[in-house]
């Protein structure tokens, strides 16, 4: 059998061994907050990035059809 705890300082009572501290530690709280910030930022980014693409494409299509609310020249598009 392999002994996965060869060092005295690592007893079999060891539980959490996370980077930046164990459960309920300051490091873990900080990582959680950073993760939430990334998640919210990504959601905001999805909205913003897509809005830009759609607005540009819609404006281009309107311009191609003569501006305003005119329809595109080819309703089925190039596909």
């Amino acid at each position, binding site marked *: 059998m392999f002994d996965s705890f060869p060092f005295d300082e690592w007893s079999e009572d060891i539980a959490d061994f996370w980077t930046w501290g164990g459960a309920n530690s300051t490091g873990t709280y900080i990582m959680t907050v950073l993760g939430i910030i990334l998640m919210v930022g990504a959601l905001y980014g999805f909205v913003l990035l897509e809005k830009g693409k*759609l607005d540009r494409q819609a404006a281009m299509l309107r311009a191609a059809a003569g501006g305003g609310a005119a329809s595109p020249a080819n*309703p089925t*598009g*190039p596909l």
Partner: protein
Amino acid sequence: MVSSIVSSLLAQAAPTIEELAEQVKLDSLILTEQFYFFTVVIMWLIHVGFMAYETGYARRKNLMSTAMKNILTIAVVTPSFYYFGWYTYGCFQEGWPKSGHASPDALPGFCGLTAPWSAGLGPNLQDHVSLVFFLAFLLFSWTTASIMSGALIERVRLSAYLLLTVVLGSFVWIMDAAWGWSSGGWLVTRFGFHDAIASLVVHGVAGAFTLGVLLNLGPRIGKYDALGRARGFRPHNLHLTLMGLMLIFTGFYGFYAACLVIQSTVFPGWLNIYLSPTTLGAIAMVITFGFAGGFTGGWFASKGDPFWTLSGGLAGVIAVSAGADVYHPSLAYLLSASGGMLVVWVGGWIERTLRIDDAVGAVAVHGFSGFYGVFLVGIFAGGYPTGINNIPSSFGGQLMGMLAFLPLAFLPGYCVSWLLKKANLLRVPPEVELEGLDLAEFQQDFYPEFERASEVILTPDGREVEAGQILLDDYRAVIRSGR
């Protein structure tokens, strides 16, 4: 000398009863860990299937925007479920957590283990179960969120879908799971609500949420004529759609298995989510007969339509999932056949009478069948003891669950999509919808070497005609009405 060596070896080779008990306990935990891990692997196929199913059903001009919804579901639901969803499940089973992190009474301390900074949600040598159990629930969340995806295709903004899917996948469904799909849920401990494999808590709730969104999203350009009669769009690859459905069905075996609690050292070895006894074989039989009955019902009700035959199979399984831990296979076969038939008629009614453009019939297949499934338990499994309080299942208890979950699902779907609509963030501009979303989102055609044929559309009387003029007329009507 020799005898002392032999006796010392024998002493090493003969563990005590306590040591053996520890080894068996660890072995059982490792078995549990592996079991849930492999259910997660199998459940990934559900998402492969959803992507193929919806992409095949989209028109050629919208296929990649459809596929990306399914892929990015994983990107947004995973963190939101980790940071908020799992805590909701752990702590809100009694409504509001009565004893804080020591809640709920049924599983003392479970609430505290579901916070993202807790010992239950990171690497932990003493805990072989929490992380894989979390992952199984995460896959349920992806599934619930993806159910909405297909209904909205070809006109919803990707970002709007992602925001909605976070609400559905990480808040709405998991709150109803806490209430009615846990050993400590108030609907279970007080009313004996019984939905063993999540007919209502996953499928029904996702369908009701989707219905709320569809009311604000509106139909695709060209879907209805001036008299309100439904036209049909041709899927660009129905084979891909059918393969996607078959992959979803394969993944469902993992989903069903993951809904059980494995306890290999205690008779009978398996418990349902309410901690009532069942077996893996029992639920596997029900799902298999559910498909058989559902395909049969769907085939006959749709007069052999391929899409509705396979959707009938899905509806059949959902109709028997709520009682899958106790149903006899013959009962599952009969009930799922009824579910497979009903869903075809309900789908047609939603499309033609309610004039709601649900592109893949998700409200009927998942929403209707989910509610139908828990309704059937009230009739066919009435009296069966549910949960740790052994409250008998009853029609009243099932009705209580339906009445709680319908507004819990529908209202957030309606309200959040209404807010997005008011902010002009729900739907793509009509010009982009007409041209196809893929050019706007990705600036390319994803079948570059295939011949480009004119788009066709099915008229209400069943004729296939060129779509160009019809779409253009409806586009003008949209611009005039500002809808």
